[in-house]
């Protein structure tokens, strides 16, 4: 059956599993905490150095894989992962300050 063709996911980010006993799950994105986090995260990204900002945008906003981001930004995959860690750390620090 041709419908069997499927593409293997190259990168999957998973959300934490909700409590099993909840009958109806209110979408947590509607909550003010995540909305505030998003706003602060974007503000913090503006303060990053250009290589870090480009990396976190490529991976966490655009959704490129590490390899694709490396090719687009003309660097190595290891450099992308290292920069990504540093970029997220700086953004996380900004989130924790508030």
């Amino acid at each position, binding site marked *: 059956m041709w419908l069997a063709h499927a593409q293997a996911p190259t990168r999957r980010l998973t959300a934490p599993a909700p409590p099993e006993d909840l009958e109806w799950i*209110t*979408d947590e994105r509607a909550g003010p905490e995540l909305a505030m986090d998003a706003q602060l*995260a974007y503000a913090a990204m503006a303060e990053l150095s250009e290589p870090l900002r480009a990396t976190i*945008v490529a991976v966490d906003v655009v959704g490129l894989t590490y390899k694709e981001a490396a090719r687009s930004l003309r660097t190595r995959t290891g450099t992308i992962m290292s920069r990504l860690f540093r970029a997220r*750390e700086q953004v996380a620090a900004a989130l924790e300050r508030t």
Partner: protein
Amino acid sequence: MSRDRTPLPRRDRALLVQLADGTLSGPRLERAEARAREIPGAERLIERQRRVTRALGGGAAPAPASLAARATARRRAVAWRAPRLAGAGALAAVLALVVAVALHGGPSTVERAADLAQRPATRPAPAAAGAVLAADVDGVPFPAWDAEFGWRETGMRRDVLDGRPTETVFYEHMGHRIAYTIVSGPRLPRPEGARVVRRDGLEIAVYHDPRHGGHDIAVFERNGRTCVLAGHVLEQSTLLELAAWRGGGSVRS
């Protein structure tokens, strides 16, 4: 912005990123987890990484369809032209997207429904009863695709998006998963920037979301209710075929 003073070696930084993103599996994952246990505060560092990905949309807020379409086009263009692009050009291409993200409003209900495909099932799959499953939203049943296409129902979940109850059934075939969500209430506007095609008389809006390794989304209407089909497939036509299937009339149009 304070400078990053993390004393972690570059290799460990890369490892923690991969653990936070869940991109490792098998022996590599086992080795990474073993190494992470030796890194002081690794668990907290991983959670900090995940908090940022959640805030920026990884597994949380989906990119709007119009942005996703532009991101896909840009992604292909950047990848294709990468050898000839100056570094600044590639950077500008990516940075242009963050401006679009920052300026764009929140995702629509349809786009958020599509993102439910990334969530886990919270209930067992409903039983099949002929060409449909024993579950429906406002009288619109979920299709039973196993016999016809080999996509077997594996679980479901219920959510409320913008005050609208939704039900999502997950289907799997050869280790791959797609999600079928039906949104209660009047029809929702089509996602901005989506391509509209007609298949077997059914109008289907399709677009590609580049996040999560890339997944395709089909939005259509059954008996006045909005249905969203999302998942990793090789061709969008797979989703179109599934969306348009009527099960001999059992799936109401």
